Structures are given as structure tokens and as C-alpha cells.
């Protein structure tokens, strides 16, 4: 078996033990790596019903066969666990030197079990693992923690750490790595915190096993240069992802005021042009030649790296149109280790609920200073309000009542990304059926939908596109593990990715082989879901109810008077199920599971829900 180290590092924090375990080629080729490994490991090892914030939960850090090898854009790791936000499998990816270092240490994944008896930092160097005290930095933010780690181990070390949000088990706490990088939206940072694990530091000195290392070196480095040249020509990194803000504002797709509105006359103040003008630095992930991290000085003078999701959800969605203030909110999320997207939706929901009388409070849209205070309170679970905000919008809505769940902007508990789908049916579907809740990384179809289909359509072509993108983005890129941006933003051919995979593994795969693994992963995540929520129905694949509410329709602009039609959405959902081979509840059929090689898992799942 070439291309994989064949090893998983298992660490137990309770008894401070560790061991190297091996996996075979069948496991490797069934799941590839990254999200695939995490989905399989957690399905096999977690008992349904466990407390995600208890010692029984496990944290998985997983890499792919091209992770850490110089090639476009391979400096990422997947982090996963049972989510404290959604109650089933959750994951995320983040750029980190830990991707390369962990592979050089000889592992394709690590599993962290148990709970430490005091704040701990794991230090991994090849075959050695040390359990070190992190008491000195417990209570500190991610920037100070990173500095403390760098002072000990140098800037070349791979680092994964948490801030106060993770320590205090905020349900949308993330894991942070280096400048601007964060991952694990569904509270994977809170899982670290629940284990009193402040940081993981990795250094490796071995070679990453490859079938054709010389060929891969030439191919990967050559392609990094080509992507760099493509970006120079296209100019994408002038504004990076935040270029999309101005476009969303034009097509009635921008989240404004907790998604109540779809555009705003002041949106230009926080758009990509203004961001580029305010740029003081640019950061990116390892092995990247199209660095997207545009960094500005926030209101208090900190460096704050902004992208579209941050600006959309901490800016326009809160009616805050001062870029330096958006920078401040983003900086605080990064410092505390909170997911910027969920944090933005939680604050906007809180303001909306106050405005609609569902709860009493003193936060209003547009109040950046109070928003900063609320983020601090959430990160520290300070007082009743801080504790409430730390729970995420779905739990808040259940506490508030008054039908507020209708405008809690989440699916399956995970807050939606910064695309207002009031009348964008395909994108609404992609949020509804995203594997782990309303994540944007799996199927972003707005521009396809508006350009290549009729916006009003709820037809099968939109379901087909969502599946196609899930296979590419939620499947292949999450398993290899690589960033999708060279492909989608610069037009770098998808065919390059099986080429990298084949060069390092010596196999001869096509994109179709990748799609089969992707389908296996999506089916498996559904099995994770139904064993936690056996009574789940297709309603769990619906987007927030406010998007179906005629009284919430825009009064002017391109979608004036329109909203999603619930019957038509249900029909679109059925197209998706039919094309996927799922039953009317949205559960994979036995026959599909058999074809995907998951018959054993199907039998196990029947303990929880009957399969069709």
C-alpha cells in the first residue's frame, strides 16, 4: 500500500497512553482519507446517544493521501467528532502545518479519547507523544496560545488549539491553527475543550510514503506554479471570497438583518473593493499559491483576516456596515475560537427575537459595541445571556418559544452560511441536504442556478447539480484533503486530482471512483444521523421556515413578493432523494447501501430505524 502511512495514532487522555494502529488497503480505498476516515472511525467507535461533551466522544484529525505533499492546495486537515451543536457526526477542515507534520510523523489520522485531569497539550514528535501541562495558557485566547507554542517549538510546528470558546464548551467553538485559519464549525473545538485538551502540537521528520515521489514532486510543484500564474492572470485574490458580497447584494442573495432582507444600500462599505483597499497583510494555508486571507486592521488595531462568510454574517446580517467593526467581531471570534458564521447567526437571531418580542434584551441590529460584548459573554458563558448565546440558535429558539424557531437560521442545528435563499430554491436545497447541517462548502450552486437554470424552477436539474457538487466538494476534496479554490475560482481542472491521487498511491482511479467514495460517505453520514435521531423525517432536510413565509418576502427588487413555495421545495427534495436512492424519509435504502458496500452498516442501523 503506497500513498498512505497505514497508521493511525490513538491517544487516550484519561490514562495518558498512546499507540500506533495500522489499517489495511481496503479501509484506505473505501474511505480515501480525511472526512472518509473520520466518518468510518466515528461510526464504528462511538455509541449512539453519548454526550458529545463527555469523555466517550472522540476527536479525529484525519488527512488524505496527498496531504502535506506540495501540490495545489494540500495543507489542510479534517477535524471531526460527534457534534455538540447538531448531536450527530460533525466535521470541518482547516489549513494547518499539522497536515504535513502529522504525516511526516508517520500517521494518516489521529484519534483522541477520554478526558485529561488537567489542561493538557499533546506534543507529538514521530513515534513519541508527550502529555504536557497547558495550565499556563488555559483561559487564554488562540493568538496568545499560538505565540506560547511557537516560542517553545518554532513556527514550523503543526498546531491545533482552542480559545476560551472551546474551553467553555460553546457549542459552535472551532479549532484554530495559524493566522486566520479555523475549522470544525459544529463545535469540534468544544469537544477539545471538554477533554481539557488545549492544543495539539506535531513535528515529523519522516518521509511521506509515495508510489512515485519524484514524479509527484515534479507534478505538484509544477502545478503550484501554474495555479499561481492562473491567479495572477485572473486577479481573484484581489478581493478573494469577499468579491461575492457585492454580487449577492445585486441579486437579492445577501443576508441582511437576520436574513429578513436580501440587500442593503450600504453594503458597498464592506465589499471586496473596500476590503482590498484596507488590506495590511495577506495570509494563506500551507501549500497554497493563491492566498485568500485578506487581513485588515480592526477598530482596535488588531490584524483581522476576513472572508465573505465572516463579512456577510458578522456584517450585513447584523446591519453593521463599518468594515473595521466587522473586523473587530471577526478578530474576537478568532481569538475566542468561535465559529464566525454561527456566531453571526446567533447574534442576528438574538436581535431578531428581541425585536419580535420573543425575549427581552438590550441588543439591537447595528450595535457593534454590544455585539463585541455579547461575543465575550458567549465565549466565557458569562451569566444567563452568555450561557444562552453559547448554545447556538436552535437551542435558543426552543428556550424562547413564540415560534422563534422559524427565524433561527439553521438546519439540523448548524447555522446557515451567508447566502439568503429567500428565493433561491437550489441553494436552499443544498443547505437542507448538506451532510452535517447548513454548511456552504458542500454545494454552492447560486451562480450556476441563476446563470444556467430558471431561478423559479424547483426542477430535477437543481437536485442533480447539488449531488454533483456534493460529490466534488463534500466528497473528493474533503477526503484527499485539498482546498477546492484552485478548481472553482481559477478553473484548475478536476482531472488533476485523480492524477495526484494515482501518482502517490500507484492506483489508477478516475473521477467516477472518487464519486463512489463520496456517495458512500454521504450515505454513512445519514446513518450517523438516523441512529441519533431515529424518528427523523424529511422535515429535517428543510431550510428555515422564514424562507417559506410570504409575509417575509421582499417588497422591492428582483424577487419582490416571492418566497420559497413549501410544496415545490418538497418536490425538489424528492428529486434529490430519488436521484440519490434515498427513501421518502431521506434515508438511504438497503439496496443502495448494499451497492455502496455498506450492508454490514445497514444491518447495524436497523437497530435504530427500519430501512426500506
Amino acid at each position: 500500500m503506497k500513498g498512505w502511512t497505514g497508521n493511525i495514532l490513538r491517544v487516550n487522555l484519561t490514562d495518558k497512553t498512546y499507540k500506533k494502529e495500522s489499517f489495511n488497503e481496503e479501509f484506505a480505498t473505501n474511505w480515501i482519507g480525511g472526512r472518509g476516515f473520520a466518518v468510518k472511525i466515528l461510526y464504528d467507535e462511538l455509541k449512539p446517544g453519548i454526550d458529545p461533551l463527555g469523555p466517550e466522544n472522540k476527536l479525529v484529525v484525519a488527512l488524505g493521501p496527498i496531504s502535506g505533499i506540495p501540490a495545489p492546495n494540500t495543507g489542510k486537515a479534517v477535524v471531526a467528532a460527534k457534534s455538540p451543536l447538531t448531536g450527530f457526526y460533525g466535521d470541518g477542515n482547516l489549513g494547518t502545518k499539522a497536515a504535513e507534520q502529522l504525516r511526516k510523523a508517520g500517521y494518516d489520522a489521529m484519534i483522541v479519547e477520554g478526558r485529561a485531569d488537567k489542561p493538557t497539550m499533546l506534543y507529538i514528535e514521530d513515534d513519541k507523544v508527550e502529555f504536557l501541562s497547558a495550565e499556563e495558557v488555559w483561559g487564554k485566547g488562540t493568538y496568545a496560545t499560538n505565540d506560547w507554542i511557537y516560542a517553545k517549538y518554532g513556527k514550523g510546528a503543526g498546531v491545533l488549539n482552542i480559545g476560551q470558546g472551546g474551553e467553555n464548551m460553546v457549542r459552535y467553538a472551532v479549532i484554530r491553527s495559524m493566522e486566520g485559519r479555523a475549522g470544525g464549525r459544529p463545535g469540534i473545538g468544544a469537544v477539545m475543550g471538554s477533554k481539557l485538551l488545549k492544543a495539539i502540537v506535531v513535528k515529523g521528520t519522516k518521509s511521506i510514503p509515495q508510489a512515485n515521489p519524484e514524479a509527484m514532486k515534479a507534478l505538484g510543484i509544477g502545478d503550484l506554479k501554474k495555479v499561481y500564474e492562473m491567479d495572477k492572470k485572473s486577479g481573484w485574490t484581489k478581493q478573494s471570497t469577499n468579491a461575492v458580497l457585492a454580487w449577492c447584494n445585486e441579486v437579492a442573495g445577501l443576508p441582511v438583518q437576520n436574513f429578513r432582507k436580501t440587500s442593503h444600500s450600504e453594503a458597498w462599505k464592506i465589499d471586496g473593493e473596500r476590503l482590498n483597499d484596507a488590506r495590511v497583510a495577506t495570509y494563506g494555508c500551507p501549500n497554497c499559491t493563491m492566498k485568500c486571507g485578506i487581513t485588515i486592521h480592526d477598530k482596535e488595531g488588531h490584524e483581522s483576516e476576513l472572508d465573505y462568510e465572516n463579512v456577510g454574517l458578522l456584517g450585513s446580517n447584523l446591519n453593521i456596515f463599518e468594515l473595521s467593526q466587522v473586523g473587530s467581531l471577526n478578530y474576537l471570534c478568532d481569538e475566542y475560537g468561535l465559529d464566525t458564521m454561527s456566531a453571526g447567526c446567533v447574534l442576528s437571531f438574538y436581535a431578531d427575537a428581541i425585536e419580535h418580542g420573543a425575549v427581552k434584551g438590550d441588543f439591537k441590529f447595528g450595535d457593534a459595541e454590544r455585539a463585541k460584548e455579547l461575543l465575550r459573554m458567549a465565549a466565557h458563558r458569562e451569566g444567563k445571556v452568555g450561557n444562552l448565546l453559547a448554545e447556538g440558535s436552535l437551542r435558543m429558539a426552543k428556550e424562547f418559544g413564540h415560534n422563534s424557531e422559524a427565524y433561527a437560521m439553521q438546519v439540523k442545528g448548524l447555522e446557515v452560511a451567508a447566502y439568503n435563499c429567500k428565493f433561491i430554491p437550489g441553494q436552499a436545497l443544498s443547505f437542507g441536504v448538506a451532510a452535517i447541517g447548513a454548511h456552504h462548502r458542500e454545494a454552492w450552486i447560486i451562480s450556476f442556478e441563476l446563470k444556467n437554470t430558471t431561478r423559479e424552477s424547483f426542477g430535477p436539474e437543481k437536485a442533480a447539480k447539488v449531488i454533483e457538487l456534493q460529490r466534488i466538494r463534500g466528497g473528493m476534496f474533503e477526503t484527499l484533503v485539498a482546498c477546492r479554490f484552485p478548481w472553482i475560482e481559477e478553473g484548475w481542472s478536476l482531472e488533476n486530482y485523480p492524477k495526484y491521487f494515482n501518482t502517490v498511491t500507484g492506483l489508477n482511479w478516475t473521477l467516477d471512483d472518487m464519486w463512489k467514495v463520496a456517495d458512500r460517505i454521504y450515505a454513512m453520514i445519514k446513518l450517523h444521523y438516523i441512529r441519533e435521531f431515529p424518528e427523523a423525517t424529511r422535515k429535517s432536510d428543510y431550510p428555515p421556515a422564514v424562507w417559506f413565509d410570504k409575509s417575509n418576502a421582499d417588497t422591492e427588487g428582483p424577487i419582490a413578493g416571492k418566497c420559497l413555495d413549501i410544496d415545490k421545495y418538497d418536490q425538489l427534495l424528492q428529486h434529490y432523494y430519488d436521484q440519490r436512492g434515498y427513501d421518502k424519509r431521506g434515508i438511504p435504502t438497503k439496496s443502495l447501501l448494499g451497492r455502496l458496500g455498506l450492508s454490514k452498516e445497514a444491518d447495524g442501523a436497523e437497530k435504530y430505524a427500519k430501512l426500506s
Partner: protein
Amino acid sequence: MKITVKLIGPLIYSAGFSEKDFNLTGPVSAEDLLVRFNIGKNRPTIITRNGKAVTPADPLKDGDRVVISPIYSGG
């Protein structure tokens, strides 16, 4: 006729403006704008008129707001 053209992202830097009003004569399509501003050769674009997608051949009308953007994937 008066047409307002709004460019998105890197198109701004290649065309040299972000948003501008133009007084144009005769039948004009979105495609004519792409040629005029030398846009869309390097990457696919999406064109909207008054917030709704149009094809490059669609004729424009007086008062239209035309937005030309590269196709994005989001953050």
C-alpha cells in the same frame, strides 16, 4: 440610452472602473458590453440585468443596471 454597468471582483481592475453610467446608442446587448470592456476572455461570467440573470445576447433597455461577475464558489 443610459445603462449602468457594475463590475464585480477582479473585473474592476482589468476594466478600470467599478460602477459607471454609459450613454449608448443603438441596440446593445450584454455581449456588446463584454466586448467593449474586454471581459470574459479568461473566465466564465454571469450577467444580471436589474438583478435577474440574462444571456449575453439579450438586448438591453434604457435605465438597465447590468452587473457582470465572474462565477464564484463562495467562502
